């Protein structure tokens, strides 16, 4: 569904990604884990069309995204929940959700989907008319995911959904991700929280200093010496 091939991204003189290739198949949950600065966020921003690669390609449904604006990608079924959630804090919960459906015009269906989000995250129903900037971090994460759901994405990209959240809230967020998968959404999630991501994902890529160090089925790589080395960069000095 998403094919990333030999992606190089630089910001000015800073190299963020150096030849990353990655594949997400329909119906999968795929995790990209790695320490801070590994290039995880850059990977998602590039896939969502907000950052342009220097070389390499990103294809969604077999179509190159190189010429597509982020807003066009959303309309074609790819949504990103960026790191830090980026909810519109001055707008109400209701308005944030309404904005999630910007690319759609089927009013009745949108109303049903809003209802679905509010059932999934009941706390948003209680705060429906409130300014979303007043929500707690966990509530904001739920709102960000709910907002993305309203675009009816077929592929959802999540950047650090557990960042800064209490363990109980992290569980809620991941339960929501599993539920999304059951409803047919493909998920690519980026995490520093390696154990949580490994538990949720079918397959995992370990990214470190802009390079994929290890990839495989999550169950196969969890806890192995190769995983420790790739994640903590024991060999990173030698590998560059």
């Amino acid at each position, binding site marked *: 569904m998403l094919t990333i091939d030999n992606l190089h991204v630089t910001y000015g003189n800073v190299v963020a990604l150096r030849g990353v290739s990655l594949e997400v198949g329909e119906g999968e949950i795929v995790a990209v884990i790695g320490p801070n600065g590994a290039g995880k966020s850059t990977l998602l*921003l590039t896939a*969502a069309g*907000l950052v342009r690669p220097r070389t390499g390609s990103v294809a969604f449904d077999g179509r190159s995204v190189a010429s597509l*604006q*982020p*807003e066009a990608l*959303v*309309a074609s079924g790819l*949504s*990103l929940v*960026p790191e830090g959630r*980026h909810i*519109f*804090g*001055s*707008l109400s919960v209701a*308005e944030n959700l*309404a*904005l*999630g459906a*910007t*690319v759609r015009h089927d009013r009745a269906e949108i109303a049903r989907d809003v209802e679905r989000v509010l059932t999934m995250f009941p706390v948003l129903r209680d705060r429906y008319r409130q300014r979303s900037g007043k929500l707690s971090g966990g509530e904001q994460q739920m709102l960000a995911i709910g*907002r*993305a759901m309203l*675009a009816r994405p077929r592929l959802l990209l999540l950047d650090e959904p557990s960042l800064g959240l209490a363990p109980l809230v992290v569980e809620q967020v991941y339960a929501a991700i599993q539920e999304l998968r059951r409803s047919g959404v493909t998920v690519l999630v980026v995490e520093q929280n390696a154990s949580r991501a490994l538990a949720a994902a079918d397959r995992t890529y370990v990214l470190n200093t802009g390079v994929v160090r290890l990839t495989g089925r999550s169950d196969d790589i969890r806890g192995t010496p190769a995983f420790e080395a790739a994640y903590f960069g024991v060999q990173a000095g030698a590998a560059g």
Partner: protein
Amino acid sequence: MEFLQNAIDAISLGAVYALAALGIGLIFSIMRLINFAHGELIMAGGFTLYTLAGQPLLVLILAALIVTAILALGMERIAFRPLRKANPATLLIASFAVSYLVQHTVLLLYGSRAMGVPFLADLSTSLEFGGLRVPRLQLVTIGVTLLLMGGLFAFFRYSRTGLQMRAAAEDFNMARLVGVRANRVIAFAFAISGGLACMVSFYLVAQTGSVSYKMGVSMVLIAFVSSVVGGMGSIVGAALGGFLVGIISVSLQAYLPVDLRPYRDAFVFLIFILFLFWKPEGLMKTRADRERV
């Protein structure tokens, strides 16, 4: 009674400043562009009135609105869109370039002298309310401004496009990530700012009865100051700032010692500087100065 008279003066001048500041603030909130060429939109409205003088009022108003909107959209398309990812300083310089280009094109076509334009001349008479003399133009200005602001408020509050514009003003990249079309909301913002500039030009032409190629320059400076006072990036703040600066100008005009009154604007800007020491972020806090993704 004198106080009431001054209050009406202050509110009507504040209303005009608020309209001008809204035009600047709206564009800044979405694009982080301080559009100094906004003054040339005002001027273009004035010159449309001059060029078409003698036509029916409705024709004049519509023509001026169309000209300013098209000029605003043209600036965006030709000068600012290619620079959208540039830093704010580059955008600012580009707006100066556009400003000078338009000014000097008009200078070439019409010359440098101010030219008389009869426009809404019947509004120059005053109404009397028990000793209070209120020029009709002031009443119309206040009325039209309130109407426009009400309309804008409703647009931002209740329409889909308005909601998208508020989202874009708060976090442009995130707005795009939910599917808001960048080109569309920016074009909308420019068209609205052109319309607002046109309203200001109606006031200036009706009040002074003339147009000149520099007529927008001082207004855009005041509008810029007003939007900074209000808090750059806040649309409500820009309107508030405009009213505040208008009120301060009129108060100084009324209450400064007579021999200092010619230097009124120096005092206005002095107060502005002191205000910035006190509240550098303006009346309304925004996330405008945050880092762009």
